C-alpha cells in the first residue's frame, strides 16, 4: 500500500483540515445558538464557555490551514502547465479536466468557484470566534450581533461545503498525483 507525496498533501488539505472543519460546523452552530439564547446553568457555564472558545479557535486554525495548504501547496500542482506536445495529462489535473467536454465544467465551474468561495470561510469564522470570545454570554443581550454571528457561521458552513464538494469531485476526475512515493505497508501474497 502506497501513496504519493502530492496525494498525501491533498488528503491533509481536504480530509484533514477541510472535512474536519465541516464536521465541526454543525456542533458550533448548535452550541452558539444554545449558548447565546438560553439561560446559563450556574455551575457549568464558565467551563462550557471556555470549551466553546477553544472549539471556535480550533475551527479558525482548521479554516486557515485548509485555504493556505489548498492555495499554496495543492493548487500549484493542480494548475501546472505541461510542456508542449505532452500527450499524457495525468500529472496536469487542470489540463486533463479541460481536455474533455464532460469534465471541463469541473474546472470552469467547480475549481473557479471553489478557489474563491473557500476564502470566505476563514474570514467568517475568525470574526465569529472574535465576537464570541469578546462577548460570550453577553451576546444574549445583543440580538443583532447574535444574528450576525449565527449567519456568518452558517455561511462559512455553506462555503466550506461548496469547496469540499467541488474539491472531492475534481480529485475524483483528475487527482493530483506525483512526487515521491510513500510506502504505507507491504502487502503479503495470499
Amino acid at each position: 500500500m502506497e501513496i504519493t507525496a502530492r496525494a498525501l498533501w491533498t488528503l491533509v488539505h481536504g480530509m484533514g483540515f477541510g472535512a474536519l472543519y465541516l464536521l465541526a460546523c454543525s456542533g458550533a452552530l448548535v452550541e452558539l445558538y444554545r449558548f447565546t439564547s438560553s439561560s446559563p446553568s450556574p455551575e457549568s457555564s464558565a467551563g462550557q464557555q471556555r470549551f466553546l472558545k477553544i472549539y471556535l479557535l480550533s475551527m479558525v486554525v482548521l479554516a486557515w490551514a485548509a485555504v493556505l495548504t489548498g492555495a499554496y501547496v495543492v493548487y500549484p500542482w493542480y494548475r501546472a502547465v505541461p510542456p508542449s506536445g505532452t500527450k499524457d495529462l495525468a500529472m496536469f489535473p487542470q489540463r486533463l479536466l479541460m481536455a474533455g467536454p464532460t469534465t471541463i465544467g469541473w474546472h470552469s465551474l467547480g475549481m473557479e468557484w471553489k478557489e474563491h468561495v473557500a476564502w470566505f470561510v476563514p474570514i467568517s469564522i475568525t470574526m465569529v470566534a472574535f465576537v464570541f470570545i469578546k462577548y460570550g454570554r453577553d451576546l444574549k443581550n445583543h440580538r443583532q450581533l447574535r444574528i450576525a454571528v449565527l449567519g456568518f457561521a452558517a455561511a462559512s458552513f455553506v462555503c466550506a461545503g461548496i469547496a469540499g464538494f467541488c474539491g472531492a469531485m475534481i480529485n475524483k476526475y483528475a487527482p493530483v498525483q506525483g512526487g515521491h512515493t510513500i510506502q504505507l505497508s507491504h502487502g503479503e501474497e495470499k
Partner: protein
Amino acid sequence: MNMSKSNASPNSPVLTNGSGSAAILAAGIGSFVLAVFACASDKSVAVRNTFVFYKPTGALSGVTTTAIVVWLLAWGILEGRWRNKTVAAGRIVAVAFALLGLSLLLTFPPVVDLF
C-alpha cells in the same frame, strides 16, 4: 451611524456593541473586496498579472492576500473608531449580510460570466 458612549445600567449589556459591529462589518467588507478582486482578475489580463504575487499559485495569491490586508485594515480602523461606542448594529449587520450575499454572487462563475 448613530453612536453614543456606553452608559451601563444593571439591566443593560455589559459591553457596548461597537467592537462586535466592527468585526462583523469588516468581515463583510473583506469578503466583498475578495469577490470584486476575483471578478476583476477574471475579466482583465492586466489586473490578473498585477495580482500574481506567487507565480505557482497565480492571481489567486494576490487576490486573496490583498483582500485579507484590506479586511484587517478595515477591521483595525473600525475597531479603533467604535471600540467603546454603541452603534446602530441593526443597519451594520444588514450591510454586512448584503456584502456577504454580493460576495457569494460575485464568486459564482455563471454570474461572473455576465459581466
